[in-house]
Each structure stands twice: as C-alpha cells, then as structure tokens.
C-alpha cells in the first residue's frame, strides 16, 4: 500500500519537475530559435532561418562597441575578483575564528543588497571622483559585486580542503606561501574556476549599477535595454542569443570541470 503511494508521489514530483524545467529552459530555447530568423521582424516561430541578424550585430558599430565593452570589463574584472576574493577567502580560512562570520557577511554583502541602492551610492561617490561613464569606474563597480562570488566558491573549497597535503609540502621545505601556491591553489582549482565563471557572467550581465554610471559608453545589457524601446527588431534576439550561447558554454564548463575535478563529490 505504501509502495503505491510512494510510486504515485514519485510520479507527481517527476511530473512537476519536468513542467518546471520546461518553464525554465523553454523561453531561452525560444529566444535562441528566434535569433536565427531570416525575417526582418520578430515573430515566433520564424518563417525562415538564417544568421542574418548575427551578421548584422557584428557589423553594426553600436552593437560592436557594446559587446566589446562588456567583454572587456568582464575579462578585466574576472582575474582581479579571483585575486581579491581568494586572498580574502584565505585570510578568513586561516585567520582567527572571532569575527570571521562578520567579515564574511560584509564581504558578500554587495551581492545581496539591491543593486539600486548600490548604484545610487556608487554614482554619487563616482561623480565626485570623476569615475562615471569610464571603463575604470565600470570595472571598480563590477569588481565590488563579483568579489563575493570568489569568496564564496573559494571559501567553500578551502573549507573542505584536507590540509595534510599542504603540511606535507611545508615539511618538505616549502614556505607557507610556496605551499599555498604549489599545492593548495592547484588542489582547489574547481573553486577557482567556479568563482571565475560566476564573476565573468555577473559582470557581463550587470545592468542596474552600470545604468546609473553610464551615459555614452553603453555596455551590452544597457544597449539591449535601450533597443527595446526604439529598435524592436531581431537584432535584440541575436544579441541575446549570443549571450545565451556564451553563458551556456561557460555553465557547461563550470559544472563538468567542477564535477570531474572534485571527483563528483559534490553531487554524490
């Protein structure tokens, strides 16, 4: 009797899950398909397919500038956030226990607080520092909201890290720094890769804070946003499709590299 109930419940859960997964993934698939339309208007399903609009965005000055700016900021911010974040995570992991919680909360706060509030404050400060609408300003703002990801993923890796390999290295003559560099960091690579990918994507997709800071130099999300009001054509779909493909690639790398490198421990 119980087995049947279990079976029924199992089916219910599977059904609901399938629905939800479709809900999650379908819109993106729709968009991806839409981006390959050869028509000059947005209509789903596309009457004909082609890469016309991808070619368009890669030859259009405005789109090109926006894509390059977003990529440039993300590429700059990612290694920096990994550096800052790993340093912070190490300090928390190896440092004294008191205050660890507090420091950790402060470190990840920029990720949790509403971007609107941060954008407001950062704009005000950057107006004084003349950092608005500039690459440096964007980078610093993005860095602030990406460091939390590095702290979290690297911190998690460090927490489950078996220190005896590091101690073995130290007993063999490596100073604490050389031990971390040669042994610990390579061994927590999944955490580093994960943090890096989250950082990249967060920066690439960031809208609200950048919106506060930008006037003439537009990142890709802002460009898309503006286009929605005056240029509702498939180039938006193409650009969005491009973003989806980049992030899908990175996600696969994230999940599979992370899975393999950690021996599947997380999911077992």
């Amino acid at each position, binding site marked *: 009797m119980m087995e049947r109930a279990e079976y029924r419940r199992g089916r219910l859960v599977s059904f609901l899950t399938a629905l939800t997964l479709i809900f999650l993934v379908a819109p993106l698939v729709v968009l991806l398909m839409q981006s390959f339309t050869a028509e000059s208007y947005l209509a789903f399903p596309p009457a004909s397919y082609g890469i016309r609009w991808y070619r368009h965005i890669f030859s259009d000055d405005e789109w090109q500038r926006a894509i390059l700016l977003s990529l440039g900021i993300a590429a700059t911010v990612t290694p920096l956030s990994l550096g800052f974040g790993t340093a912070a995570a190490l300090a928390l992991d190896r440092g004294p226990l008191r205050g660890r919680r507090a420091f950790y909360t402060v470190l990840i706060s920029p990720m949790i607080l509403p971007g609107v509030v941060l954008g407001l404050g950062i704009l005000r400060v950057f107006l004084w520092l003349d950092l608005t609408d500039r690459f440096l300003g964007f980078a610093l703002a993005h860095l602030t909201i990406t460091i939390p990801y590095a702290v979290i993923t690297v911190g998690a890796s460090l927490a489950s890290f*078996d220190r*005896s*390999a590091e*101690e*073995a*290295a*130290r*007993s*063999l*003559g*490596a*100073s*604490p720094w*050389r*031990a971390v560099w*040669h*042994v610990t960091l*390579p*061994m927590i*690579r999944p955490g580093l890769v994960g943090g890096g990918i989250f950082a990249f994507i967060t920066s690439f997709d960031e809208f609200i804070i950048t919106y506060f800071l930008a006037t003439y130099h537009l990142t890709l999300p802002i460009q898309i946003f503006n286009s929605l009001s005056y240029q509702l054509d498939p180039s938006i779909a193409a650009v969005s499709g491009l973003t989806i493909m980049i992030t899908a690639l990175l996600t696969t790398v994230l999940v599979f590299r992370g899975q393999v490198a950690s021996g599947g421990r997380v999911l077992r």
Partner: protein
Amino acid sequence: MTAVSLEGVAKRFGPVLAVDGISLAIAKGEFVTLLGPSGCGKTTTLRLIAGFLRPSEGRIAMNGRHIESLPPHRREIGLVFQSFALFPHMTVADNVAFGLRMRGVAGEERRRRVGDALDLVRLVGLAESYPRQLSGGQQQRVALARALVIRPQLLLLDEPFGALDPQLREHLQQELKTLQKKLKLTTLFVTHDQAEAMLLSDRIAIMNRGKLEQIGWPKDIYEQPRSRFVAEFMGRSNLLHGKVTAIENGFAQVEAGTLTLEIPLEKARTGESVTLLIRPERVRLRRGPAVEGIGRCGGVVDSVFYLGSSLTYKVALADGTLLQATQSNTGEEGASGIEQGMAVQVEILQQACFSLKGDEAG
C-alpha cells in the same frame, strides 16, 4: 648521541592541556614509538616536533639546536601521514621531487635522487603515474619516498599504516623496519596499535592523557609495566588483588583468593594490599586432578576460544575469580583436549607475576 630531545614540553589549547610536560630523548638512528589511545596527545606531540604547533612550555632540540621557533620548512624533517597527503595534481616523480625542488636541487641530480628514492621503496616504473591511479600501499610508498629523498635528520610517521589492510600493513611494517635500519634514520612513529609498536620499535613511549606513562624497551614495558594503564594497554592481563602474608629473602607470599603466590617483592610489609598482574600466556593449564600449592590450584574451564594460532581459556577458580589463560596451538596433548566444563590444574610460575604498587593499581 641525542638526535632529538624534548624537555618539559607542554601544549595548551585554551583550557585543555593536550600535552603535559613531556621529556624525551631519542638517540641517533633510534626507532621510537609514541604509543597510546586516541586523544592521549601523541599526535599533538608529533606536530609540535614537526613545527605545525608551538609549545606552550618547554623546549625541543634537534642535534643540539633548539628548534621551537623554527618554521616547519626549515626543520630537516620528513613527514608521513596516515592519509598519504600526496599532491594529486602531480605525478609520482613530481611528488617525490617536490622537496628537492624547494631546496633548489635540479636537473640530473634531482632525477637521480628521485630514481634512487623510488628504488628504495621498490616503486620502479610508476614515476609518471598519478596518485589516484595507485593502490593504497603504493601511495604510502610514494609518501615515504618523498620524505626520504630529502635526507631528513628525523623521520616522523603519524599512524601511516592505519588506512591499509592488515596483510599490507604487516608487509609495509617489515619494509619500513628494514629501510630504517639500513639508512640508520632517526625515526619517531605514532600509533595506537600496541602490536605494531612492539614489532617496529627500539623503544616505546606510552602516553596517556598528555603525560608520558613509561618509556623503555618493548620487553620491559610488556613484562614490567609500571602502572595498570600500561599493563592493560600493552596486552591482556589478569589482575588479582591480595594481601601479603609473609616475607622472606626478598620474596613475598601473597594470598589472593584461592591462589597463594610467591613473587619477588621488595619493601613489602606484612598485611599490605597488593595487586598482581599475570599475563594469560603465563597461566598454564593441565588436565588432571588439581594439586594445591604455591602458585597452584584447581579450576573449572568456563569457556574456550579457538583463535587459530592460539587458544584462550577462561577458568573459574573456587572463589569465583575468572582467570584468562592463553596457549599456542601446538597440537600437543597438554594443551589440546581441554574443553569447556573440564576440571583443570592451574599453574602460575613464580617469575610470571609481578605487582603493581598500591596506588597505581587502580
């Protein structure tokens, strides 16, 4: 020549005293084991010597130099962990070469020494493999090679064979002993396995609750334990409580229930209470009628345990005391044939038992 010495070393973690005033001197080329139950402070002591912890009190010296303030990477010590602690992202060869790399040894010399170390632990041909491709025993050998290649002044091993199968463990124990003798390497070994300690050590230091209970040769510790804890940790024992009834020429007669025993006992007084310790292998059983006397009495076999290479008997004496007796399974008439419920002669040799002082007897 003292290679390593600890003087009054203590380590406090907050209110907890993990190591309480340990003093120990290890001679060059000697194999000493720190033996004790979990939580006795042996691993903490090892980590103090390795440099991962700083002593709260006391001094540690190696070859005459005080090292308490030296960081681990400047003490010439080789470490082997129970979890192997190999670098998973490096090949076997790179693992072994790590210490040489840190010391700036490069090129041909590095290659040669790595090869020699792998030869020493009999791991030829696996140099380019990764740790995850190796068995537990092979990994432990790599760990050993890695520690030996830097020619350390001291080799520290923290329960290195704990994670291995019994057969493999025995094998590696023999290999380690052979290697250590050959290299004349000063070695400190930590374990909770008393049999392992006896097999490997020149001297054994037993620890309990942060203190050093006794240190000495395996034979002395086994046959002359200085406290009940040591006695019971080193092996099974029969404990009998009795009273001194007579003293003569350094020998005391002790009455312990049904048994009257004569044991060498200095500074005894008549009427004094003593606790006697008798190892099961020194209790002899014989089929046949019981003859009373010094060290003799009759008993009934309560249970028999067949352990393959030996047999253990529990014998009930007239006053209800249960004595444990162990005998090798030689197949001879005297031993075999003793079954449960049988009446037997119990015989305890004079030299087989000794006393624990009153206050240590627990």
